[in-house]
């Protein structure tokens, strides 16, 4: 296996990880601030992709599509927060799991009701289509490079937001001591709606960005949701830094595991069986990684709460 191929695969792993971060950041933010387990986060990702496909189909503009994706997901998020989620902050995790599980059913079938049962079309913008040759002679899709860039930009933006703005200070204060910031006169209800909408917008953005190179269809959010949970658990729930590191770890493990495990088994098995065994093990790799991390550190890499 050549060095070029390995570098290309590492880039693929990074790109996958960065996309997972967009999902995981919202999830971990919502848990960190409100203590809520949101199983419906994958539905917001799906809403983003569908909104983007609809707007791109109508206007032909990818940027408008991205804006629509974030707006639609944020609106859906805010609506759900105001009507349902708000009543669940005091409830235990069990009620949250059940309520957001119900929301998945409503969102998925509702989307199918509106958009029908066939996948929608969404393509990468012309300016970003096709490959670009990187130093060292690696041909790499321009759009995937753009995804890595966009994901890193969001990561930096989130960091700046939480560290250097007034709203960020409130968010961090909310994570540490809810009564305190309420006592300081911050409208905690509005803060929660805002944080939820922000997390939803990030999920919608991820859905639209990924939807351009994947299939925009009902149920697309659930596999990503499970991966995003794995990410935030590895990183430590509530920690944005943890989500970032966790996302990269999961992205790299999943991508590189799929390539190297079959090669590894070929050293001592016949190729057909090795490919299959390797593929089976690779599909379990990230869950094994998560198990190992939790056995080593029961609250994840950067988790504070017990």
């Amino acid at each position, binding site marked *: 296996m050549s060095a070029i191929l390995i570098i290309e695969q590492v880039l693929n792993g990074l790109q996958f990880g960065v996309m997972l971060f967009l999902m995981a950041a919202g999830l971990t933010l919502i848990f960190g601030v409100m203590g809520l387990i949101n199983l419906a986060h994958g539905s917001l990702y799906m809403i983003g992709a569908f909104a983007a496909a609809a707007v791109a189909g109508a206007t032909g503009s990818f940027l408008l599509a991205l804006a629509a994706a974030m707006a639609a997901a944020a609106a859906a998020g805010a609506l759900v927060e105001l009507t349902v989620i708000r009543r669940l902050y005091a409830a235990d*995790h069990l009620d949250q*799991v059940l309520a957001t599980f119900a929301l998945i059913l409503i969102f998925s*079938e509702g989307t199918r009701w509106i958009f029908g049962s066939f996948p929608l079309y969404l393509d990468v913008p012309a300016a970003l289509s096709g490959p670009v040759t990187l130093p060292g002679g690696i041909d790499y899709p321009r759009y995937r490079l753009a995804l890595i860039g966009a994901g890193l930009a969001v990561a930096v933006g989130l960091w700046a937001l939480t560290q250097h703005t007034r709203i960020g200070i409130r968010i961090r204060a909310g994570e540490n001591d809810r009564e305190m910031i309420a006592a300081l006169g911050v409208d905690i209800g509005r803060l929660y709606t805002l944080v939820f909408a922000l997390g939803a917008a990030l999920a919608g953005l991820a859905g639209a960005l990924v939807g351009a190179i994947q299939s925009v269809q009902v149920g697309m959010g659930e596999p990503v949701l*499970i991966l995003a949970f794995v990410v935030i658990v590895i990183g430590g729930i509530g920690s944005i830094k943890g989500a970032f590191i966790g996302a990269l770890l999961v992205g790299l493990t999943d991508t590189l595991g799929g390539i190297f495990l079959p090669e590894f088994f070929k050293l001592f098995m016949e190729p057909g069986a090795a490919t299959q065994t390797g593929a089976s093990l690779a599909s379990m790799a990230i869950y*094994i990684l998560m198990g190992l991390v939790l056995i080593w550190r029961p609250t994840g890499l950067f988790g504070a709460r017990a």
Partner: protein
Amino acid sequence: MIPERWLTFAVLVGLLAVALGALVMDRPFTITLATRATILALAAVGLNIALGQGGLVSFGHAAFFGIGGYAMGILAHHAQTFTPLELGPLTITGTKSMPVIWLTAVVASALAALLIGLLALRTSGVYFIMITLAFGQMFFYFAISWSAYGGEDGLSIYVRNDFPGLNTLDPIQFFGLCFTLLCLVLLFAGRLMRSPFGLALNAARQAPERVETVGLDPMRLRLLAFVLSGAVTGLAGALFADLNRFVSPAMFSWQLSGELIVLVILGGVARLIGPVVGAIAFVTLEHVLGDVTEFWLIWLGVALLLVVLFARGGIVGLVARRGHG
């Protein structure tokens, strides 16, 4: 509000009456539905031991359900194809006998619960939810690529397994078998709740430090609860596979783990009869709504939301007052 004990009795009698009524009116499919509710109830009663009494929110109980199912599938598959199963020096011929299959399912899922519990119980709260989910996913992906037993296609068992003296293919007789098992397990779970172990487990959920001061290890209490819970759910898995005469990786899916939690909460957490009520309500909703509209899952979602928002304590919480402390 009626006492919980009466409700338990009424629900079980009601379930039995539905099945017998369907027999009289020659509606065999209604018996099948009642059997499905009974088996799902059994699985949820199992989950409730960990979830309700131990406070352990397992999002991976499909692992045990699936192990029970595959115990049935593998044993019956080897029996129906007359190919012995070679396990190193051990040769197992496979069997179609339900009691043997049940025992295997219970032992296998209890062992799995012991292993998973030893690792997962090091964590708590959300981390516990997620690590159990991860174990469930591992089993799911393993089953999908396990081509010896059908992979994603699963395994078909052409004829239902045997129970001495019964014709298990007759819907009402198979229902009777499942119903009897459910009653026995409920009896066991009820005793467990009131036993010193159950009381200690409850205390460990509410105030672990206090339990430690009287010399009990909360960790061991939880582990035992988790193992018992997994074993009961595994038994239900074996019955479920026999009901469908089919096993597939779908029994390991995270959606199934989610559905089991839904059954428990819908009925009422930590109530003996809660999971049974939840399972009956769920199967009824699924069947009735499915006939009304193609988009029935939306309405199922709405119904679940209403329960969470306005009926804390589930259906049982609405109608019965708590029995024993």
